[in-house]
């Protein structure tokens, strides 16, 4: 019996169409648009000016606080515009536009594929480097990694969990990364272990990626303290709290962080980015993006420079199919439908999913029939139907009492509701409003 988390969960059709496609490098585009807010927390501050010449990996925006991240140029060329542009949120945010000229990398970046295993840096030095080179969580939430690595006083990390679950249907970027860059990823893991001062790391992978489990198990024999654990396929196992429950059977308290139970979770993509940052001095300026969907001609995984337009990715995968109903940034469960495909790929873009017209519409909304399916699938043990009702009535004090802030927005409730009720939309609204109330209370 494979391990998994205990409460709730659903199992949508996996549709991992691009799982067999090895990672290809997307040609460098003519221009890139690099938003300065690609992470959770304060936006970065632009430090380049119009007409500046930048190199690949050169810092263009400085971190704007403790929870923030540096932004680096992903191409070499000339800064042509610093203005507001639409990003995947649908709103205009400040971004730097760079016209590409050649591909000249910053001298400090080691540009070869040789795997360096030894790392002589101390814990503080590693954390500093991860912060400087703009590494953020690549699982989708884009939380600045150096914040996660800086363990608060009075708490100790006991175990590092590497998230290779990729529970979202369709997406395969982490899967391919584990297969093709497994060794580098494990070196990154051991660097993260050193930074956190822990002796144990567990790589959690869902059992639908048997080849990755086998590959990494073999490789991990060469590393002390790293264990690979196969997990039962269940969504949302990739959620931090669910993965901790599945792997070490501990429950993160309500409102708490994983560190409260001695665990720190990082995505496999982050582990690889940390390896590149620490061993090769390479900032986070490219990432693997899956371009997939049933109607896509060639579903593939592309190593893409940050700031490349989503439309170019789609073009590379065979163009936008005629019957496209929705283009989603991310996976089908947690991703966000784009309202134009001329938005840049950011650090958090794990995939671009194209859904044909016939499948893209939400069903007709009808009344709640009290079947309680949403309650039984909620992995956080919440009552989504109740949270939606109180949000509709704008009773946000009650929503707070009913722990709306614990919602991880996995969308299992909306997915399972037979009445097609927009449960998550309302829960997100109540989270937004309750968050506002909580902040005003603090200040």
């Amino acid at each position, binding site marked *: 019996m494979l391990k998994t988390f205990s409460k709730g969960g659903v199992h949508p059709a996996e549709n991992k169409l691009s799982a067999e496609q090895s990672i290809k490098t997307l040609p460098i585009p003519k221009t890139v648009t690099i938003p300065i807010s690609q992470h959770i927390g304060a936006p970065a501050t632009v430090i380049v000016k119009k007409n500046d010449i930048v190199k690949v990996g050169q810092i263009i925006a400085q971190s704007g606080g403790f929870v923030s991240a540096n932004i680096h140029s992903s191409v070499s060329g000339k800064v042509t515009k610093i203005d507001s542009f639409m990003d995947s*949120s*649908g*709103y*205009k945010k400040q971004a730097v536009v760079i016209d590409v000229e050649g591909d000249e990398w910053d001298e400090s970046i080691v540009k070869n594929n040789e795997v360096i295993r030894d790392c002589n840096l101390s814990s503080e030095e590693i954390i500093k480097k991860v912060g400087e080179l703009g590494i953020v969580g690549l699982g989708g939430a884009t939380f600045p990694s150096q914040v996660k690595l800086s363990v608060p006083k009075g708490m100790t990390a006991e175990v590092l969990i590497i998230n290779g679950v990729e529970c979202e249907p369709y997406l395969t970027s982490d899967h391919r990364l584990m297969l093709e860059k497994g060794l580098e990823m494990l070196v990154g893991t051991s660097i993260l272990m050193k930074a956190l001062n822990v002796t144990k790391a567990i790589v959690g992978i869902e059992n639908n990626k048997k080849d990755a489990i086998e590959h990494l198990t073999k490789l991990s024999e060469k590393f002390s303290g790293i264990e690979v654990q196969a997990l039962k396929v269940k969504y949302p196992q990739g959620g931090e709290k669910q993965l901790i429950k599945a792997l070490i059977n501990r429950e993160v308290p309500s409102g708490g962080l994983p560190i409260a139970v001695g665990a720190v979770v990082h995505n496999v993509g982050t582990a690889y980015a940390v390896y590149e940052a620490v061993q090769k001095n390479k900032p986070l300026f490219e990432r693997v993006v899956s371009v997939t969907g049933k109607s896509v001609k060639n579903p593939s995984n592309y190593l893409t420079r940050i700031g490349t337009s989503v439309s170019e990715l789609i073009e590379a995968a065979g163009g936008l199919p005629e019957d496209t109903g929705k283009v989603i940034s991310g996976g089908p469960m947690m991703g966000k*439908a784009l*309202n*134009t495909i001329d938005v840049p790929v950011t650090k958090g873009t794990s995939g671009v999913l194209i859904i044909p017209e016939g499948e893209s*519409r*939400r069903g007709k*909304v009808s009344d709640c029939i009290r079947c309680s399916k949403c309650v039984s699938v909620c992995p956080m043990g919440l009552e989504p139907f109740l949270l939606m009702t109180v949000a*509709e009535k704008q009773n946000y004090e009650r929503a707070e009492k009913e722990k709306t802030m614990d919602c991880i927005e996995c969308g299992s409730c909306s997915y399972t509701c037979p009445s097609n009720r*927009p449960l998550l*939309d*309302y829960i*997100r*609204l109540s989270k*937004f409003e309750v968050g506002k109330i909580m902040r005003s209370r603090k200040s």
Partner: protein
Amino acid sequence: MSEIVIYTIITVSVIGIIAAIILFFASQKFKVYEDPKIDLVEEALPTANCGGCGYPGCRNFAEACVKADDLSNLYCPVGGNEVMKNVAEILGKNAVDKEKQVAVIRCSGSYNVRSRTNNYDGAENCTIVANLYSGDTGCQFGCLGLGECVDACGFDAMYMDEETGLPVVIQDKCTACGDCVRACPKDIIELRNAGKKDRRIFVSCINEEKGGIAKKSCEVACIGCSLCVKACNYDAIEINNFLAYIDYEKCVLCRKCVDVCPTGSIHEINFPARKIKPQKKEKSENPDLVKIAKDKNSSETKE
């Protein structure tokens, strides 16, 4: 048998008398003095409990009126000057005269002038769309068309026009309580003075984008060309962030700005239809402006 009845009656009466005595002393001890004027004022109010005055209900407003030294900061928008006058009479204070106001929708991006760039099929709630998504048009400022203002209106003074997808205010029913203003997450609705003979002029757009971008997403957007500012002789129009705003206190309803607006984003309401000849004359008085406006119009039609 009859004994039981008698005993029962006696016992119950004794309990009743004792309770009455306790209640009498309790009511003496815990008596809260309430100004009888509060009741009178409340009666004079419309008792719609709409919250337009800034108080949760009419009773609270009445209490505030009685307590206040003067009524200059207190005003019931639903009752208007007449009700405030009555309230002032009851209290022996002076009421302020305010001009009648009415809600106006500052967006005219109907289906045929503001193209839909995508289909939104999520929750039908303006606040959700405004906070989490960006709606289904290219304009990030305009009306989302899901009717939260209509739901908020307690006077049936609003409805959604299905042809345009925009809310409409029924002027006669609007009490300017401001519930729709508070309900709109995009701040599109504004309370403006109803104006002389109910005539009003306002900019029906809140798009703060640069002209080109605004025009691309909506044909009737204000592009911030400032032709109206130049046309206005009374300094009533200001442009901030490529968006014109007409100050209703200064506006004299001359309609010059309406004439020069190249996109038609300045609306006039309840004016009599124009005669064609005098309009031409009026235009020729300002040949430069007309020329600019014409050029702009023609260049846009060419595009």
